[in-house]
């Protein structure tokens, strides 16, 4: 029985490798604005060049997003684990902060909307 375990482990590790390859390309382009969605639906967009505070209040809970120095982060949240407050601020296109219990996604976007990298030649 032990031998099958190894095959299973190998299969899972290969799956993990595949998952690594599936990762969206991290962009080096600075984000110009953030897009906030709740439960998959658009909540709003805010430019990153103006310092501001945004309170996202939904039936799922409340998060306060602070935009400062061209970056956005969660400064206050009432979710149990407050993981969203510990994540790195959104600075580049494609960066995200997610609050899972509140179904909140804050994503950095650039003007043309598809990140800074258009194609990669190897």
């Amino acid at each position, binding site marked *: *029985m*032990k031998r*099958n*375990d190894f095959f*299973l*482990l190998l299969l*899972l*590790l290969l*799956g*993990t*490798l595949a*998952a*690594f390859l*599936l*990762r*969206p390309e991290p962009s080096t382009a600075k984000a110009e604005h953030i897009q906030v*969605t709740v*439960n*998959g639906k658009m909540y709003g967009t805010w430019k990153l060049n103006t310092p501001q505070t945004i309170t996202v209040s939904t039936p*799922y809970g409340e998060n306060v997003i602070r935009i400062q120095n061209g970056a956005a982060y969660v400064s206050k949240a009432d*979710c*149990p*684990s407050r*993981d*969203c407050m*510990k*994540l790195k601020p959104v600075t580049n296109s*494609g960066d*995200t902060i*997610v609050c*899972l*219990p*509140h*179904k909140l*996604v804050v*994503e950095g976007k650039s003007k043309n909307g598809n990140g800074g990298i258009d194609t990669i030649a190897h």
Partner: protein
Amino acid sequence: MAKKITTAGIFTAVALILNYMEMLLPFNIGIPGIKPGLANLVVLLAIYLLPPAEAFAIAICRILLAGLFSGNGIALAFSLAGGLSSFFFMLACFKSNCFSPTGVSLAGGAVHNIAQFITALLLLQTQALLLYLPFLLLAGIAAGFCNGLLVVKLLSRLGKIHIF
């Protein structure tokens, strides 16, 4: 019947306590939501020691009660998705008789995280979540592996006790 309820009750209680205890462990890897998953260990023991129906009852009860105690509705949804998927997969692996408890636990851990990931993907509909998938898988595999080793040890001891 009373014996069945008592046995199931004990298993469920142990699972719930482990749920709390693992929060005490300094397990901060920086990726939100990664836990040792010791409660899954209890479910796996139940699959090996008890009839499937009772093991299922234990699995369902510990998910619902833990969700109730945590007071977090969304967490309950994720816990259900992960816990139920992992339970049925582990039961299938157990019945197939192809793997040792370590392998079953391995599969259970991975399936648990995959199911939760898919749930998150469906709810949040953002590609960004894919960034976490490899780490989720690795964590599930690692936790499943450690749990599996523990279960092997426990089974060798508990198997000798003829209460079940």
